[in-house]
């Protein structure tokens, strides 16, 4: 019984047809995850991605030229629209698409949402990241705020959109009617400012960027062969002190004194300890001491990292080894490079739905 229940090979979105409009990283990442879990994704027009972005995100999709007025026929046969267009783009708006096709889940991903005074602002990744609040918290205090690398504002927006879209699909399955989801990437980031925004509002406690070592026991340090870090909460302080060979004295144990009067002393101990060890040695100390220790790994390090291989994390395909499913437990499609195809091909392959009268 228990063995039957979980399963893991079925594609949960098999048969779900998705239209990606406007391209871009956020919409591309959202629909990439939908494709991986089994959706049939048709990308309308060139997605405006770099070669590497296109390689990573357009796998498993079909691409057609903008079909003009025939777009309506494609939408009629789809279940989901992932719309990465600007709010002032040509063509029907996300709201108009939704109104014309009540069965659709329409997920509109924009930097600032579909309305409001900044809705039409021009925004790149760094502009979006700056408006979401995370950038003000990132970087060294004596230098400018810093963006997180890898276009995270847009990819984060895509991840939000994926989670919101799959959730809305649950409702669509039940109610046989979709919804219009207005995903503002600014709001997505602003909803995940940890305790920082609330601290200002509730306690007048201003949290500012504090670099790699906001606290001695919570930071990134140089090691013999690179960079590593420790993140210890109060309950892990005894294990940290044991690891460092320090006594459990009040100045280290007290949560206030530790981050004020004793901060520099403890930081010096951690710094020296880290400098005397390799990344691998430090990572190995974590499990046995129940201590959150980690090392800064690179994509090169991870390509051959055995635990990721054992867990089947990677997709090995024409473009080499790439990160695959974000989580196991369901089937994950074999994602071939994007296929250029025709409108007729798409409509032909989706004709059963159109003929079945799903379209309004």
């Amino acid at each position: 019984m228990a063995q039957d229940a979980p399963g893991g090979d079925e594609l949960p979105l098999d048969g779900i047809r998705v239209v990606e409009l406007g391209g871009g990283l956020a919409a591309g990442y959202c629909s990439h995850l939908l494709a991986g879990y089994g959706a049939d994704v048709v990308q309308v027009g060139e997605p405006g991605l770099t070669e590497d972005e296109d390689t990573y995100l357009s796998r498993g999709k079909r691409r057609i030229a903008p079909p003009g007025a025939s777009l309506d026929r494609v939408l009629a046969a789809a279940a989901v629209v992932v719309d990465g267009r600007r709010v002032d783009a040509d063509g029907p708006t996300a709201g108009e698409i939704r109104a014309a096709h009540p069965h659709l889940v329409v997920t509109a991903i924009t930097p600032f949402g579909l309305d409001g005074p900044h809705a039409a602002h021009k925004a790149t990744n760094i502009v979006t990241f700056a408006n979401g609040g995370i950038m003000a918290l990132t970087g060294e205090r004596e230098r400018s705020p810093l963006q997180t690398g890898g276009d995270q504002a847009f990819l984060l927006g895509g991840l939000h959109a994926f989670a919101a879209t799959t959730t809305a699909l649950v409702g669509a399955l039940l109610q046989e009617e979709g919804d219009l989801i207005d995903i503002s990437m600014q709001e997505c980031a602003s909803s995940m400012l940890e305790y920082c925004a609330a601290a200002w509002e509730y306690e007048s406690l201003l949290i500012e960027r504090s670099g790699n070592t906001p606290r001695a026991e919570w930071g990134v340090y140089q090691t013999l062969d690179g960079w590593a870090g420790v993140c210890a909460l109060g309950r892990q302080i005894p294990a940290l002190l044991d690891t460092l060979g320090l006594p459990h004295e009040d100045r280290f144990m007290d949560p206030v004194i530790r981050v004020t009067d004793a901060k520099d002393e403890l930081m010096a101990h951690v710094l020296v300890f880290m400098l005397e060890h390799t990344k691998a040695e430090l990572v190995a100390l974590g499990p046995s001491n129940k201590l959150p220790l980690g090392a800064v790994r690179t994509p090169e390090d991870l390509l051959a990292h055995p635990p990721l291989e054992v867990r089947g994390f990677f997709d090995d395909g024409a473009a080499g080894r790439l990160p695959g499913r974000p989580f196991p437990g369901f089937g994950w499609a074999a994602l071939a490079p994007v296929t250029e195809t025709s409108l007729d091909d798409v409509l032909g392959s989706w004709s059963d739905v159109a003929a079945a009268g799903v379209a309004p």
Partner: protein
Amino acid sequence: VKRLPLDGVRVLDLTMMWAGPYATRMIGEMGAEVVKIESPKAWDNIRTLMPRTEVVDDPWNSAYYFAEYNHNKKSVTLDLAAPAGRDAFLKLVANSDVVIENYRADVMGNLGLTDDVLFAANPALVLVSMAGFGKSGGDQDNVGYGPIIEMMSGLMSLSGYEADVPQKTGISYGDPVAGLAAVGAVALGVIKKRRTGKGSRVDLAQVEVSTKLAGVAFAALNRTGAAPPATGNRHPTWAPQGCYAVRGEDQWIVVSCTDDAEWAACAELIGRADLAALPLAERRARHDELDAAIGAWSAPLDARVAVDVLQAAGVPAGRVLDMRTIKDDPHLYARGFWVRIPNEKMRPYRKSGVAWRLLEANPTITAHAPYFGADNHAVLTSVAGLSDDEVAALAAEGIIADTLGDVSYG
């Protein structure tokens, strides 16, 4: 009125700290009945993580960090290490759709709540575990919070002012992104259950979610033999792009010119028409000089003015909103993003509202974060089917509770 998409879905939430509670916050906003389960002996540490500046009788019920991520949830306290607590939990499992937990990899097994035990109680269960490094593969004994996840995932290696000094994100970035993936896992599990009647077991590794977000770097590595180095605030292709000081203490804007026309407009605006015709290659080569020119223009300006005139000229630009200014951002204000949720144990304050705006179902925050054990009786009688006497017995044995007594912070 359209129903919320997860209306009718019951979720048992064993998560703590941030990654899991962020997931179940979103799930609760989408209409699920989220029952947060803590132990009287091992509560969600976020309730008592931050030292308080005010003296209150029950600080665990009014912590703003906890309040931020636990609205729209019910609270049940159960000591799962006690046989009676474990039995009550399994009765809840039998009548629920989803169990989600983000314990360290060995904790559920140590509690006797293995996957097999849970699926024996409910074969159609959607079980989402989200340990930092998963429950298998060889790294599962690693211990980690968000910044450790960011380091170990490869993501941190892409960030930094200089290419050889990685820089961590200012929030525990690995946490909320894992939470978002977990919402997707729950939704896919519910879809699968509705389509096939079968349950799902998801062994999410937080680190893999972050590595997935670094995927473009892997594509570059495959193609060129090297992952792209960190470029600070600059863009790897277009120029100029950077972060520039404006008037006020620690106030900044970003400017990002993606083509010749945007740069030409920017150059005119900052009074450097002499530079407007620079082609991209020259703008990249003279980036320091262009940064200085933009910075000299922006330094005396108010951030809003600088951004408004840049945007009006067609130049992508934005304010670096900090924890003060983001609460007063006119755009977020106009969209009603910050909301006040009545809570008699807290002073009124504005917290982040619903980020996923389903414009027809219209999700809202309907309840403040729950007080510790506030729903013990209601949930244990109506969902687990316990009698009043059985609930009273659990209370007498300390298996359920609605107070923590004296607690230390941290």
